[in-house]
């Protein structure tokens, strides 16, 4: 039995403990905001926060995070008003939008965890988050805006 807190709600999981957190969130809890893209930590669309740090849910077996607090895009803020989310809307960052939950979770960890954010910080922090539509220039701008707004 694995106990975790997801977006503030206590959950018990008694299935196959190798189950990646991604599929537990999506298929069992119905939290489909966290996306599947690769299954091997190569694209970042499944980025969530585990105990406040960004993690790829696709390679995080549920059995390894007993006692952890998990935050998904649905729980990042009460009303979608985290500075990163606001900046994303201000700048119309998204194209198809599919990768953006992962981008936002990665960016939120960066912005929340840093006093200042440079372009190099952004390249380093965001390198694991793919966007096939190519929204990177706006992601960069939105992170800078969110960091300033914080």
């Amino acid at each position, binding site marked *: 039995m694995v106990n975790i807190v997801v977006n503030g709600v206590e959950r018990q999981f008694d299935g*196959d403990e190798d189950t990646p957190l991604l599929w537990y969130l999506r298929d069992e809890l119905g939290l*489909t905001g966290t996306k599947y893209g*690769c299954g091997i930590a190569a*694209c970042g669309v499944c980025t969530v926060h585990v105990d406040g740090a960004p993690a790829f849910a696709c390679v995080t077996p549920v059995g390894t995070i007993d006692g952890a607090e998990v935050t998904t895009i649905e729980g990042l803020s009460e009303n979608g008003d985290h500075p990163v989310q606001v900046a994303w809307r201000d700048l119309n960052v998204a194209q198809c939008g599919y990768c953006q939950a992962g981008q936002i979770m990665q960016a939120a960890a960066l912005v929340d965890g840093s006093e200042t954010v440079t372009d190099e910080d952004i390249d380093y922090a965001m390198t694991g988050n793919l966007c096939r539509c*190519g929204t*990177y220039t706006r992601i960069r701008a939105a992170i800078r805006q969110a960091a300033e707004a914080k």
Partner: protein
Amino acid sequence: MRDTPILNVSRRGVLGGLGAATFVLSVGLPRPGRAQDDEPEFGRDAMPNGWTDDPKAFVAIDADGTVTVTCHRSEMGQGVRTSIAMVVADELGADWERVRVDQAPGEEETYGNQDTDGSRSLRHFFMPMRRVGAAARAMLAQAAADEWGVDVSEVTAGNHEVTHAASDRSLGYGELAAAAMELDVPTGDALVLMDPSAFRYVGSSEIGLVDNMDITTGHTTYGIDVRRDGMLYAVVARPPVYGGRAASYDDSAALAIEGVEKVVAIDPVDFPTEFSPLGGVAVIARNTYLAMKGRDALEIEWEGGPNAEYDSAAYRETLSQAANAPGGTVIRDEGDFDAAYEGAAQTLEAEYYVPHLAQAPMEPPAAVVEIRDGRAEAWACTQAPQVTRLRLAERLGLEKEDVTVNVTLLGGGFGRKSKPDFVIEAGILSQAMDGAPVKLTWTREDDIHHGYYHTVSVEKMSAGLDDGGAPVAWLHRTAAPTIGSIFAPDPKHKLPFELGMGLLNMPLAIENVRAENPEAPAHVRIGWYRSVSNIPHAFAIQSFVAELAQAAGRDPKDYLLEVIGPARLVDPRDQGDVWNYGENPEVYPIDTGRLAAVVEAAAEGIEWGREMPEGSGLGIAGHYSFVSYVAVAAEVTVEDGLVSVPRVSIAIDCGPQVNPDRIRSQMEGAVVMGIGQALMSEITFAEGRAQQDNYDTYLVARMEDTPKRLDVHLVTSHSAYDQPLGGVGEPGLPPVVPAITNAIFAATGTRIRSLPIGDQLRS
């Protein structure tokens, strides 16, 4: 959702029947049911199932005034849900804050053509959607006039209400909706479009995406996100070689896994495969993880079939030999190439290679199908809902009318999701589970291994220059498997629509031009990939022009402009291109002045001609595609053989700009995708199997590959909105790669003729 609809959906005649095989129709087959077959049809008129501007199909207004615009085009990142709604809302006189967007199911008898491909949505539907909004506004005005007993000419509709200034009365759209729905739709002179100078939304860059809040809070629904009560989850093990089959399999270990419900064999595919599933063995389980675990436990013996020897390195040699051998089918011939080449002061030859590519949208193919009481319902991230519906019905043995295809958001498409093979797989598996809802997910490995790949190509270019360095002879020989190979048994020549993507309609001012197309059989599924054959054609042509500039000792930008020549209108038919992106060549001739203007704009944007430090350089390329004009100027730096692209300037003239912010975002995305294609993206095959598996081996551009400065220049020669619109989603891509490789030449003196660059610049 629609409490008081204006509409009851009208049923316009079903005019076509070939579904998403639109290119077949686009190249000249008559549309079934047409009254007159001698008049060629173009644009939206020529699309299967036609089009409609019936407001009752697209607009609903609730009693509380909420306007719901139904978008019949698939949203895959181009912003079409926002852009279509902007057009309707503007003509309707609606308050943007009270506009919602619904997604149409695949229902061509209601909405007309829904194929979201070919950079056509705004190009084909700007005017119909204007008329939709204007007609609805007129009906609301008439309803108010009737209510007040005044002539409709005395009332004004706008800003979500109708007012009668003389009596200082007004009624909100919500109050008028029920009465308005009873009225006839105005036509002819009764339908008055807004003066474009009054547009509030069209042309504005201040409109947020209608899905912004859902996207940023995780509440969107893509195909992979659909959930139904009692839903099961499936993955499929497919033959690793195109056309192969499972000779035998052992599913005992898979079925021993708790939570694995069933293993189902899917019949192998016959050639031509079109949109059929590839066959294989499916595992259906209680969740996606268990389905994947079950698939891993299958023991399958595969038979390779006719493509088991396909080796892309060897095939490159085959293509090269074909492209270097004279005598292929001549597809364009002007002047006398041979004589001009013989008599030239200087001749050049070059061969350009573009590998297979995978669209690899971030959302892999995924769909849910359930079957109840003889009716199937699908939820799918499809670019082609109508052919999805047809093929799903055929495969399930149902009538089309008994199949509903709900279109979800698409997590990227790029052409992959024009093919409904994955939706049909979900249908087969639902049927195998007595109709229970089944979600079929393609893993990323499935997507990379079993794609509808971008073709693989060798372009052989030969040119002769005169004493002054001007080109007087031009030969382009193109060898590449055709997309037609999925539709017909073993065709070996490119189709007119592929040749019309930048080759036949190459508009450079050269007197003696020949183009040839030798044979090239296909060994994998070939499919549309954003901008399609424009990719290899633009790479070859725009690289070769820069090579000619070098041979002539000229500045590449000046030389490109000279070769584009004086501003003139070129009829593509005069060059052998009867396709012209499906558009009327009299409405859409090639305007070389517009091409030159975007080249100038891109050059200005990058500050062309400035002194560059060692190891850095500027390159430029311009290309006409999807009846739009795009040029890219790139700055590159090469250090220890590694290429970076710190700055790009891209200019587009797509005619009138409906949603400038989304035009910009499409250009930004095209630059990023092009950088990936230039530097790293490639699918190779050995023993018929794709050698890449996932994003760890099929490489695409990441944040650090993205220019620090990316400027988009919107150029237009048309101020009036009644001018024809060009495409936006695809035309940004073709000139990106040659601009980069031309810049690499400027930086290093090394000419890249083979993609991707990879480690070619490492010493």
